[in-house]
């Protein structure tokens, strides 16, 4: 087992990866406020997966990393309206008991892990044809 990277240095690593665009192409994330020394609030986007109702749609999300991150997962909330079983239809909050990577959270998971898994979840056979709200509407 290696050294345990503290929260802030972990978030700096994630920020640098996000800024350099080294991550997956269809997902991106960045700090909501570039002045926030605590680096708590982040914006994420997911490009809807192809061959699904989400194709060509862009979904915005808000991610909140609390004091205990990455020992506990962040709060993830959709800003763009979406119809998905793991998302609260009233407020866009991702249900941490329904998305596998949040249920079985590990310390080396990142915000990118979550965004990629959400995108995969959107493309599942049982989800990819769910009727969706008009494009661009918000919670």
């Amino acid at each position, binding site marked *: 087992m*290696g*050294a*345990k*990277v*503290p929260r*802030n*240095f972990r978030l*700096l690593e994630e920020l640098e990866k996000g800024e350099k665009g080294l991550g997956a192409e269809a997902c991106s994330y960045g700090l909501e406020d570039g002045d926030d*020394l605590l680096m708590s609030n982040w914006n994420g986007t997911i490009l809807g997966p192809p061959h699904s109702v989400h194709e060509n749609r862009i979904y915005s999300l808000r991610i909140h990393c609390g004091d205990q991150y990455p020992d506990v997962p962040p709060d993830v909330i959709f800003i763009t309206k979406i119809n998905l079983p793991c998302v609260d239809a009233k407020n866009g909050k991702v249900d941490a008991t329904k998305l596998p990577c949040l249920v079985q959270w590990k310390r080396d998971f990142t915000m990118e892990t979550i965004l990629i898994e959400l995108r995969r979840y959107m493309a599942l056979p049982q989800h990819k044809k769910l009727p969706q709200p008009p494009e661009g509407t918000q919670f």
Partner: protein
Amino acid sequence: MALPKRIIKETERLMAEPVPGISAVPHEDNLRYFDVTIDGPSQSPYEQGTFKLELFLPDDYPMTPPKVRFLTKIYHPNIDKLGRICLDVLKSNWSPALQIRTILLSIQALLGAPNPDDPLANDVAKRWKEDQNAAIQTARDWTTQYAKK
């Protein structure tokens, strides 16, 4: 996991013979993670301020440098809004012969000798070059506002 002897020795020495104006205390639950304070050098705009930083020794330390960041807001051309520091010994000029102690002294020296020609905070560096007196006054104001002892 056992902590490498090198880290234990450095920590012991930091405790036994602290550097004046600098403190570094490891977290009880993570001995590679230090709470640091650095006093602003005299005759600098950071005089009378105490700045909080955090320092982390990665797995491959001392083959790679420590990671260090300011937690106190500071107006300085080589320190950005998130407290990241542009300093050669933290990057390309790191050598395993350097230590936590020497790095913290280098950071303290950087406060006394800002280098706007190698900026990290571009807006600050620009102002530092165009109107040095005004920039120094802002640095003083921020010290009073955010780093008061």
